[in-house]
Structures are given as C-alpha cells and as structure tokens.
C-alpha cells in the first residue's frame, strides 16, 4: 500500500473552535478522525467525523478500524457546560476509557488539553505558578473536581504506561474568534460583571497560538505536564476596558453576597464556582513549555482585545 503511512490521529472535541484550528493545521500531513460528544461536525470528505460518547461500546470500534498512532484529547467538557454528573462521566470516566483503549491499541502519543483552573484561585497563590504546584481547585468548588480528576488520571497513566507518551497541557484563558468559553463570552459582551474592588491578573492566549502549541506538543515528543501561557499579563478589569466592555460591579464583601447574587443571576459566563477566579489571580509560568517546545506566541494581547472591541455582540 502506501510506503510511508501518514500518521493517523484521533481528535476529540472536534466541534470546538480550537479543535478545528488544530485539525486545519494537521490535515495536510496526517490522517485525522474527529469525534465530539455534542454534535457531528462536517470537516470535509477526507476526515471521518463522529458524534459519540466515550463510554459507549462503539467508541472502541474506532480504535479497531482506524489503528490510530496518536490522540489529541480536547474533548473535555468545560465547567460551564452540562451537569456535574454528566461532566464527571465524560471527563473522568470517558478519558479513562480513552486512555485504556489507547494503551490496548498501542498508541504512542497522547496530548491532553487541561486548564489552568486546576490550580484554583486562592488568595495565597504566588504568581508564576509552576507545573509542580498543588492543584487547589477541588478545595474551592465541586464543579471543578472533574477537571482535577482528569489530570490525576492522566498523571497515573503517564507513569503507568510510559509508551503512551502523554503530554498534558494547562493553558491560560484561551480567547479569540469562535471561542465559546466563559471568559471569551465575557470579553465579547457589552457589559461584564466584575467583583467590586478585585481585578486579578490574568493571562490570555490567542486560539491560533494555542492551536500552534498543541500541534507542536504533538509533534515534539516531550511527555509531561506543561503550562501554556504567553509572558504577558493584564488585570481583568483592564482587559474588559480594552475590549470595550462596560463593567458591572457586584458587591464583593462579605463573600457570601456575590455568591448569592451570582446564583440568582445564573449567568453561564460568570458562574458562582468560577467566582474566585475573578477575585484572586492564577498566574501560571509557561516558560518550561516555551523552552521544551520552542514555542513563542505570535498574537499580542492588544490584537486579541482589538478583535473583541470590534466584534461586539450582546450576551
């Protein structure tokens, strides 16, 4: 058949904007198979696309049929989506199934997209958190448990099955065109809530840069856990200002008040369990990834915020 077989990669979370960016970068040199638990997306005739739950038996058939070389797992359900139970099933049990199957079918490269939320926003966080810092998110909210558990699981597999070559990426806030996470929704809205008197430092990475980072991570074989963030920082309220958002201050003390207000409001982009991330900074140190993978983000913060300023749409 073909002399040099093109690498065959399973890409999860294919309906997301980030996955589609990754796919567009890899499709030229790799054979891709796209899956998503939400919907079946059409990605062209050469990329088979499935809407499938990792916990269903049919998932294994994909591994049998396509003989993957690698997996890029971006299918983590974000904490603003679905119910806690469904998230746990998909993110923790589903990922475990995926890793078990990867091991069973001899996959040699796995990249898992995690989030900086796992560090947890605590008042006593130092800045420039490194990868070996404790994951404090579980102490803050039950809603972040699945994110932390997913990481723990990936970590166990990282050591138990070194052949899988697992790389876990913990990016800062991913923003840019098409991104539907909570922070991107806030930046693109006309008015965004802020906690009165709190404007924590934040980091943002452009979706194109993040896609580059994931592709680099896949191509260069360095297993381990890496933060991904540019060496640039901005305070949350300043970022809103640069995006042309009006700020809606929510009383911040005593701590129970903002929690009650947010529960009542029920905003998807500003949920009560992410409250502390708008209060205390979680500034991560992305230098280890930059060094190991020779990665340098190309899109500056100013350009990111200009995009949001020029593309305002109501919540």
């Amino acid at each position, binding site marked *: 058949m073909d002399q040099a077989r093109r690498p065959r990669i399973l890409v999860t979370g294919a309906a997301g904007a980030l996955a589609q960016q990754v796919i567009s970068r890899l499709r030229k040199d790799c054979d891709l198979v796209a899956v998503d638990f939400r919907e079946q997306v059409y990605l062209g005739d050469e990329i088979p696309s499935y809407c499938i739950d990792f916990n269903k038996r049919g998932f294994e058939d994909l591994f049998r049929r396509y003989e993957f070389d690698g997996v890029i797992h971006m299918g983590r359900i974000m904490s603003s989506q679905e119910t806690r139970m469904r998230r746990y099933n998909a993110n923790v049990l589903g990922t475990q199934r995926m890793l078990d199957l990867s091991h069973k079918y001899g996959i040699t490269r796995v990249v898992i997209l995690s989030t900086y939320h796992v560090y947890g926003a605590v008042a*006593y966080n130092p800045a420039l958190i490194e990868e070996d810092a404790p994951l404090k998110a579980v102490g803050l909210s039950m809603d972040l448990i699945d994110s932390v558990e997913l990481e723990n699981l990936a970590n166990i597999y990282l050591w138990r099955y070194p052949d899988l070559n697992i790389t876990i990426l913990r990016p800062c806030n991913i923003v840019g065109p098409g991104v539907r996470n909570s922070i991107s929704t806030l930046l693109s809205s006309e008015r965004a809530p802020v*906690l*009165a*008197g*709190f404007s924590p*430092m934040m980091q943002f990475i452009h979706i194109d840069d993040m896609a580059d980072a994931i592709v680099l991570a896949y191509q260069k074989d360095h297993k381990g856990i890496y933060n991904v963030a540019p060496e*640039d920082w901005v*305070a949350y309220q300043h970022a809103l200002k640069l995006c042309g958002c009006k700020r809606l201050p929510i009383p911040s003390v005593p701590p129970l008040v903002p929690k009650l207000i947010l529960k009542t409001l029920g905003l998807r982009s500003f949920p009560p369990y992410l409250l502390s991330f708008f209060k205390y900074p979680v*500034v991560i140190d992305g230098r280890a990834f930059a060094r190991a993978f020779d990665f340098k983000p190309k899109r500056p913060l100013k350009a990111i915020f200009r995009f949001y300023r020029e593309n305002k749409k109501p919540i």
Partner: protein
Amino acid sequence: MSLSSFLKSKLVPASLDEKVNRIRKPIGSLGYDPWGYNNEAIKVGYSLTQQLYEKYFRVEAEGVDKVPAEGPVLIVANHSGQLPLDGLLIGYALASRENKPRMPRAMIERFFPTVPYLGNLLNEMGAVLGDPINCAKMLANNEAVVVFPEGIRGSGKLYKDRYQLKRFGNGFMHLAMKYKAPIVPVGVVGCEETIPAIANFKPLAHALGLPYVPIALPVVFPAKVHLNFGDPMMFDDTDITEDQIAERVEQVKASISALIDKGLNDRKRLF
C-alpha cells in the same frame, strides 16, 4: 475622561513620567508584570508618596546609595507603625534617588489580597504577597525586594514596645543565600510614632479576620522619619544548619538594631 486619567494628568508631570519610564522593569506589553505591578499606576503612586515623603513625614534617608544599582538585593528593615508606611517610604527613597533609581518590591501580609480595592492598589504599586515563591522568583528576576522579617509581630507592636525588634523569620536568609543577593539592612526611626497604639483589640481582630486591631487615635501623626541604610551584607551559599542560619539572621538583626540606635541618636525631636 476616566478618574485614573484625570488623576494622572493632575499628578504626573512629564518629567516624572519620563523618570519612571526610564527605570527599566520586566513588564509585559500592557505595562503589567506577573504580580500586578503597573507602570502607569506607579506614576500616580509616586507623585502622592512624594507629598507624604517630603512634606508630611519629612523623611531623611541616609546611605540609600548603598543599595546596589542592579542585580537581586534584599532590603531588610524593622517593621513598625500598624500601617505599612515604612515599606512605602523605603520604596520611595530608593525610587527617587539621584543615582540609578530602582523600583523596589515590598512583601506584604497575607491578608491584604483579600481586602477589596486595597489589595489591588498595593499590587499595582509593586507590593507582592509575602510568599517565599514570590520572593524567590523576584530575586531570580533581579528585583530589589523589601522584606520585614518581623512581619505582623513588628507592625502590630504597641507603643510601649517601640524600637524593640521582635523575632525575625529565617526565610529571607535562605533566599538571600540561594540567589546570592546582598542584604541591605535598614533602620527605620519615626514610624513607631505615626500611629501609637496602646493595645490590640484581639477579639475584634479575630472576628474581622485581621491580624490585629490597634486601639489608637484615628490619625496618622506627622512624625519625622529617619531611614538609615547600612552596608550590604553578603552571605555565601554553603550548606549549613538552621542554627547557623539563625546566627546569620542575628547578624542582620544586630546591624539593623545599630542603625535604629543611630537614627534615634540623630533624631532631634519627634515631629
């Protein structure tokens, strides 16, 4: 015009703007560093502190040129006076010196980040949560860091205990040794008299989650402040026991004590 740009236009003359811009800082494209230091906010802060420093406390700083012009350095001082005014004044002394000014960073109490407005304001002015990781990363970044090893034991001191040094933590010595940072001892005289407290209202402090609630008059007295900077002290990075570290800490404490005595002797009157 927003409040911040209004304040800036009123308070920050072009010369100051340029002066602060000249002090090179490792900041990102929007003027922030990872700890929240902001180049624009610091200009307003500088201008306001100038009034406090020159007119209100009429600070006399001696030996500020002993702080090295570059590289990591720990500025270690005695803490006093309920509010962290001493850190502010030491910072300004260094930022306003003629010869190669530096914008130092102060390590602050752990409860500040939880206070709305104030926490962010302090961060923008260069103050940083007093965490050993923060201090280490800053020294690795070649910053000048102001440390008060007495912590709240020092700042919450009562008037009757003035100018008695409390126990020093050893953390700063470990970091100075690891990052080969010289230690510049500073004796602060005068801040004890700014908010003389007769007692600490512990139950209220506990209820509010504050380190202390001083019983004092609700005024900050314009006591004259003397800052005496000592010669830089270098400690080698040998593997020594905690007892030996404590001995080195005692050396620093002794030189701060001597600098305080010098300040008290030089002082003609309280105000």
